[in-house]
């Protein structure tokens, strides 16, 4: 209410600010939403724990068995990949589920109607969600990949060959894995905007991430390679490993993944605007 009565003075109980609600207000609101439910802390905590534990176990075990490993096993041992695989797989699932919950829990509980009553411009609401969730995920994912890498390499003492951040491809693999996790989490968030139900969205996401590769692996010949390189997990693998011959290069793959996420979020925005909340 933009009322301007004068008289006894004093400030109104709730002054209406100038202008219009905007991105900054919604980002603040989304940040409060994200940090005031336990599932966020649990999921992020599990992501960090999984990443560090998997790296420590894989590298520790490798070190312990190094002396008895065959020459070919030693030759194919890739210290960067082994230190990142656990965090990258765990993060793909856990951060994906968090991305889904950020949206689907609002629909499940009816909070979405309170959200949209406060901010009826739906694309802006979704953008604020993407920004907040994306930022938090990126920070946590980079933390997991860097810490996992450093912890794992520290456990890998001579004679086993360990990597450092200045090793070739190491920085790309570590930072890139974090970027991958952030974008794949946003992909999951986008799926939840389309599906709106937690169980349905998780099924769809796990289907794309884990089930699709199994189906594709049944396809014969070179067609399999052509399709396989389009799969999110293959794109992630190419980022932390030396890419397989048929796969996309790490940044090409990453660009493709960003494309998926952008398309899903764009379709999600259109549906969110059109559908009844």
């Amino acid at each position, binding site marked *: *209410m933009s009322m301007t009565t004068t008289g006894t003075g004093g400030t109104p109980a*709730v002054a209406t600010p100038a202008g219009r*609600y905007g991105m900054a207000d919604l980002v603040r609101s989304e940040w409060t*939403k994200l940090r*005031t439910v336990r599932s966020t802390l649990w999921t992020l905590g599990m992501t960090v724990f999984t990443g560090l534990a998997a790296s420590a176990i894989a590298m520790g075990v490798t070190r312990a068995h190094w002396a008895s490993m065959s020459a070919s096993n030693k030759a194919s041992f890739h210290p960067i990949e082994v230190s990142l695989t656990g965090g990258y797989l765990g993060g793909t699932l856990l951060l994906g589920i968090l991305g889904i919950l950020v949206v689907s829990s609002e629909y499940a509980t*009816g909070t979405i109607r309170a959200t949209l009553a*406060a901010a009826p411009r739906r694309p802006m609401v979704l953008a604020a969600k993407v920004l907040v969730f994306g930022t938090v995920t990126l920070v946590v994912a980079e933390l997991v990949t860097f810490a996992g890498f450093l912890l794992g390499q520290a456990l890998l003492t001579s004679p086993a060959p360990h990597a450092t951040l200045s090793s070739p491809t190491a920085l790309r693999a570590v930072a890139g894995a974090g970027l991958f996790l952030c974008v794949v989490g946003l992909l999951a968030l986008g799926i939840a905007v389309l599906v709106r139900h937690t169980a349905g969205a998780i099924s769809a996401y796990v289907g794309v991430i884990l089930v699709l590769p199994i189906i594709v692996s049944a396809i014969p010949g070179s067609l399999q390679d052509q399709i396989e390189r389009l799969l999110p997990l293959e794109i992630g693998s190419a980022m932390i490993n030396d890419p397989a011959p048929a796969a996309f290069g790490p940044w090409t793959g990453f660009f493709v993944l960003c494309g998926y996420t952008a398309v899903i979020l764009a379709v999600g925005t259109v549906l969110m605007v059109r559908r009844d909340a």
Partner: protein
Amino acid sequence: MTLHRERYDVLTTRPPAESATRGSNPLAEDPYARRHGSDTDQHETADAWEHGRQIPAAGKEDSVIEAQHLTKRYGDKVAVDDLSFTVRPGIVTGFLGPNGSGKSTTMRMIMGLDHPTGGRVTVNGRRYHDLAWPLHEVGALLEAKAIHPGRSARAHLRMLAEANRIPLRRIEELLGLVGLASVAGQRAGKFSLGMGQRLGIAAALLGDPGVLIFDEPVNGLDPDGIRWVRKLLKGLAAEGRTVFVSSHLMSEMALTADEVVVIGRGRVLAQQPVAEMTARSTARFVRVRSPELLKLRAALDQQGAQTVFEDGALTVRGMDEVAIGDLAASLLITLHELSPESASLEDAFMELTEKSVEYHGALQGQARGGDR
């Protein structure tokens, strides 16, 4: 701005902490502050509302909800059918209709949550979507417990306040007002339906809005809570706000609403003041007692009135007490009682909606041989 401040003062005539512990509003008494509550406190609250009534409704003329030919179809099913009505400031407007008559759908369309298939609805002359600071203009309680069960009441209000730049101190004030201060940090999943309603009411009042929309606000509340909501609604209207409240409980609306919009099967059946609605009803009748009741009845029947014997008295419909009295006098019939009985809102409502209640049609369909 002064007006704004005073309107708010009505809500918290005492400091929030005090109102939470002393039960200065009936709702706060229950269940957390009941032991502190007393009747005098409630009278004080009533005085506060009276104080509110003295405040003119100036500056609120534009706080209206206007629906024009509002229509909502889900496939073949018409939920809301060409609805046109206006909700004015300064009074409580009841939105009456049987369950499934389209009340909630209409309210969601006002809030811009559901898209109309046809027609339009505006708040303060604008589509909800175009409001600059929606919570500062419109507050709504659409469904109880529409809150994440893992989030606290305080966090729920906080995320709403932040979205519309409402000062955070307002949250504590409202938590005190609705009597949730002591449980504000607990997970809302533990809340009863009544507590969920109170949180919803706090959320609606957060931005001190001029327009308030409540969908079945007394659902799940105990008698004290119902009384509190009734006072709240009337107080908010007396402050010049536009108050639109749906209910399927006629008795509740009779006590709360000044004007009613009655819908059935998605259509507006009537929009009129409550008093007018009951006055127009054919359920209105006159009770007559007389030692010569049979003679009087014959005369009334001749005049075209409908008469029924009930408990030794005659119930007369279709003629008012003046005509009956005159008729009796002309026939030199002594009358022992001549009392006009106004219809209850419930009677008037039943009359209006009788033909539109969904299951009515279904039952008739069954009687015709059944298609199930």
